[in-house]
């Protein structure tokens, strides 16, 4: 090897084990692969969207070990062993998730690009159990932008899903 410095040397690819939507996955990735790119490009789960890629829009929101995070600002190698839930993992075989049904019932989207992130974020919000009022829902959903401005209907949909899910538990 001649004159190889660490800048020229390609870093070793790393092995990562994840559980994605209930299925064990083994990935071989470069260290800079984000969780978002791993989901979309390595696992073909394109429901999770790349919006800004800088943690400013929330379109990439997924649940990691039950908590909502921006997958664009997360390195997948740092999530080894985690359980990841994306929009593809919310519905059961025959039934939409109560949030998915509520977004349809309340017309809580227009173009739909932000919707997977909105729904995953709302699932995280409901699990956190901190939002009770409309103001609190709006504040705790502020990390998810909707350029179609479906905000009032998103709040209504989340309230419906909260009621449905509280009734089931």
């Amino acid at each position, binding site marked *: 090897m001649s004159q190889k410095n*660490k*800048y020229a040397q*390609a*870093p*070793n690819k*790393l092995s990562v084990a994840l559980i994605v939507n209930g299925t064990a996955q083994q990935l071989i990735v*470069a*260290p*800079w692969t*984000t969780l978002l790119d791993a989901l979309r490009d390595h696992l073909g789960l394109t429901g999770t969207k790349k919006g800004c*890629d*800088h*943690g400013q829009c*929330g379109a990439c*929101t997924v649940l990691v070990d039950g*908590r*909502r*995070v*921006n997958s664009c*600002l*997360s*390195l997948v*190698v*740092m999530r080894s062993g985690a359980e990841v839930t994306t929009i593809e993992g919310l519905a059961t075989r025959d039934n939409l998730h109560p949030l998915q049904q509520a977004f349809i019932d309340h017309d809580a989207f227009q173009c739909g690009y932000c919707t997977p992130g909105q729904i995953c*974020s709302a699932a*995280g*919000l409901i699990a*956190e159990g*901190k939002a009770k*009022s409309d*103001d*609190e829902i*709006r*504040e*705790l959903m*502020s*990390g*998810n932008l909707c350029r179609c401005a479906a905000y009032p209907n998103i709040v209504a949909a989340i309230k419906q899903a909260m009621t449905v899910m509280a009734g089931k538990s």
Partner: protein
Amino acid sequence: MNSFQYSRASDVADAVRQMGADPTAKFIAGGTNLLDLMKEDVERPTLLIDITRLPLRSVEATPGGGVRIGALVPNSDLSYHPLIEQRYPVVSSAIRAGASQQLRNMATTGGNLLQRTRCAYFYDAVTPCNKRVPGSGCSAINGINRGHAILGMSDSCIATHPSDMCVALAALDATVHVAGPNGERAIDLADFHRLPGDTPERDTNLDRDEIITAIELPARGFAKNYTYLKIRDRLSYAFALVSVAVGLEMDGDTIRQARLALGGVAHKPWRDSEVEAALNGQVASPETFERAADLLLRPAKGFAHNTFKIDLARRAAVRALTQAANGTPQSQSSKKIV
């Protein structure tokens, strides 16, 4: 993003050793700011040392009546922790005023202290910036500087520190515990962040091979009379134009002890001991608060686009002191300012 190697630290000593062995390495925990800066080509580490598996995730009461917060406690968990909500509500409030819940779930307590300015010129890797490339000049001084500093700036840099949490920690006299190759030391939060002077590339007094292990809050939490008031361009998920953390210890209408820190106005959370001394022993009244706010903003200086922040900060300080004295802290969900 540039290419880099990845390693995991097994304990604090290992993290410090790995950092000492590689002058272009960086620690990564939440990653919310570092990865963003790497995507912008502002940060170019050749090695990321993952510290997220270190045992620094507890929040514990200390024998002296304070609380010790592990550096890896996520911002969201800290904000909702019963000890913090009950005894240091200004910290809970300040955290909830910043970022989004997704980011707060990722971002850590130690990382919050080390986040870098959101000055657009610092972020834009092709314009001169003394913080990014020492000696290249400051593009903000004669550029778009609406969000920039009005206190404590220098001819080299007029950037502001972006944290909300740190403003509350400054008001509470927090201590930062760090570990390095020569052992552990404690740094007062007031001395942790730096003013830019002629070395704006250094945000803090943490040495590069040191790691934050914990933040300690002293017993006095100002849980009864406090507020965190944040003024920004939209009602949520935006950095402060001006923010104010206040803690008062009241005896009837008289202020026994006052704490006040400003955010969004300087290279570090801004405290002024002269202002606090001028409040101590005074009756809480509009006149008292106006006088203190005038004193607080007396050294302020504006640039082409941010002169409005001087009066905004003055009025926000009066409002925050009023909220704290009345025991009616700013709600971070209902945005109405009363």
